[in-house]
């Protein structure tokens, strides 16, 4: 497999030609913020937080779905990118009904972490306060769509890893919601195996376990690495993380 050498933020880095810019950046200790990406799931380039600049190219590209090219020069943290990332988090904050103080994942929330990381101090857009529903019909878990950022990690883990495809998207534009089976109460969705993978991969408090209260729920996502590695190698081990 050919190894390519190129520049990232002015430093020489190298990686395999089938790796993404995001993987290579992480191996070299360069942090690029992400939301829809999760190791072990397919990448869809939807959150646009991992956008990077490539010299000589007008368009910004998503690092999670872009492969390297020999001799290219990538910038991951320019002033423009910082500004756009802050705006993206700002848009997310205005879109849902995010009330950290009463949230079950307060202090363990990836949206909250992102807001700190991009130094979001206030939101310039009006809060949209959408009317969204909460689904507590499942015996173990709750889906609170008010906290959903539509990253689709639950959909992908259910489809790709569990193989149940209970979740999917309904509606479009700002009417998008995550639905179970044919838009029915989660508790009645016949395809759901109650494995809980969706709950663990959810970056926010949109999916959580029943019986947890404010700031109690911490999400452990390591299981995904074990499963993905086991499927590939037949061994129940988590592969060594490079960099990070």
């Amino acid at each position, binding site marked *: 497999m050919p190894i390519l050498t190129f520049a990232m933020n002015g430093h020489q880095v190298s990686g395999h030609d089938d790796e993404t810019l995001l993987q290579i950046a992480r191996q070299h200790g360069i942090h690029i913020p992400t939301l829809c990406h999760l190791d072990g799931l397919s990448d869809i*380039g939807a959150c646009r937080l991992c*956008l990077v600049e490539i010299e000589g190219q007008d368009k910004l590209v*998503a690092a999670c779905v872009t492969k390297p090219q020999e001799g290219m020069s990538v910038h991951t943290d320019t002033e423009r990118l910082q*500004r756009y990332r802050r*705006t993206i988090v700002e848009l997310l904050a205005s879109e849902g009904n995010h009330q950290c103080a009463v949230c079950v994942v307060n202090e363990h929330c990836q949206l909250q972490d992102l807001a700190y990381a991009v130094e979001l101090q206030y939101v310039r857009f009006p809060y949209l306060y959408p009317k969204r529903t909460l689904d507590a019909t499942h015996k173990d878990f709750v889906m609170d769509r008010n906290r959903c950022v539509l990253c689709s990690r639950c959909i992908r883990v259910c489809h790709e890893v569990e193989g149940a495809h209970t979740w999917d998207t309904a509606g*479009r*534009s*700002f009417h998008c919601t995550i639905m179970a089976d044919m838009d029915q109460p989660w508790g009645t969705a016949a395809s759901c195996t109650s494995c809980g993978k969706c709950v663990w991969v959810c970056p926010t408090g949109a999916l959580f376990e029943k019986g947890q209260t404010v700031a109690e729920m911490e999400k452990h996502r390591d299981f995904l690495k074990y499963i993905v590695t086991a499927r590939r190698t037949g061994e129940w081990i988590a592969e060594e993380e490079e960099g990070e």
Partner: protein
Amino acid sequence: MTLEELHQLAEKERGRQQAFTNRVLVCSSTGCIACNSGMTRDGFITAIKEHDLENEIEVVGTGCMGLCALGPLALIEGDGRLYRNVDGSVASAIVARHIVGGEVVDDNMLDTDDPFFASQMKIVLEHCGRIDPGRIEEYIAVGGYSALAKAITEMKPEEVIEEIRKSGLRGRGGAGYPTGLKWDVSRKAPGDQKYVICNGDEGDPGAYMDRNVLESDPHRVLEGMAIAAYAVGANQGYIYTRAEYPLAIERLKVAIKQAEKHGLLGNRIFESHFNFRIDMRIGAGAFVCGEETALLRSIKGRRGRPRPRPPYPSENGLFGAPTVINNVETLANIAPIIDRSGAWFAGIGTPNSTGTKIFALTGKIEHTGLIEVPMGIPLREIIFDIGGGTPDGTEFKAVQTGGPSGGCVPKEHLDLPVDYESLKAVGSMMGSGGMIVMDSDSEMVDVAKFFMEFCVEESCGKCIPCRVGTRHLHLLLEKITRGEATADDVALLEELCIMVKETSLCGLGQSAPNPVLSTLRFFREEYDELLKPVLGYEPSKPEADPS
């Protein structure tokens, strides 16, 4: 079918038509049907019966004749007279006075020397309004399927691609990617299974070029697809069109059946080893499905959502196979290029934008309708000569090209040549060919708000900048039109526009802010006029010296 049989069929049909002394062509396209052209047709048939001319005059329902504003239109083929606003009574008057009496019905006559007709150049639309789209024989009689025969029997696939490359044909869907290059990539991409897809998911408000081509000359598109398939090595094609085009769908289905019956689609076309089938796929009403990666998902029966490119469909498309996706108008250009040569086509238009382009003229314009003009023609000529200018003597203000993805072009740029690069340079785009004309009564902020509302509704919701960003852009525009906004809001509007444009995942989001950006560029004063007066502090003026 063999080449010989094709010629025989053409000969037979021409003979059939010549058996009539005259033919009356009545537009039966959506625009004229809406003006009740069915009654017109019945009117002609009844009147002809009354005069006992059934065996001498044939009444034919054709596709679009272009001047939709004055429909229903009818053409007397014998002497080429075109009539407008033909209702049942006018039809019987035309039969009595013109066909029988030999005098012209002045009141409804259209002057075919008018620039609307004279300044046009019809390549794609050459058979539209001249043949019955429901009969393959009529298409074959005007030379149809001879280009396919030529490609298969006389040319190698590489030669076909070379001819298209020489013609300089660029994608008519909006982006303007060279068609020959696209085909070449697909041809060279590894894989036994390849596909050709016709993108007929035309969704821009005010645009109906593709609908009319599909309704008026469906075989032209099928022939283009078959040539494309031969060139890239595909054996299966799909036509993806919107459910909102029932007439186009019906006529395409008929056309596909007829072509299959005559062996022009199916196995061993023209006795060669080339097999090609076409199936229809109907969209469920999402604008974003016109984006090629969303279209591919939609064909598979999945939710129409774009994915990041690369990989491009020409290498990794439908079911992972190399797939050529071309717009309806692009495919309708293929047959004449193969027939007459790429060099001939390259001689039309400008060096970088060759050939002709169809535009749908709508809005505040005298001649609402469908036109085809050579590339590089000045905008002024389209709007004032062909389009007849704005109605009721109002003043022309701007024209929106490219629909919700394009921008407006104000009157100071009226002499701009219409080609891909020039339109881009003024912040608009060619788009698929919608031209919405606005006069001095139009409020540009409202225009921007209208297009933004469209984009908000049509955003698929996958990426954040488009899903939430367009929503806030629309809210900001609403705030401005309510007169509650300040200069800060306009600054925020502009900033968010650029952010959405640069960070969105697909073409929909990337181009959604264009109408706002271009109205800000050319009509900023209209935004400023709507701002809330600033209360409170006013800078003190130096007092007049009392002495």
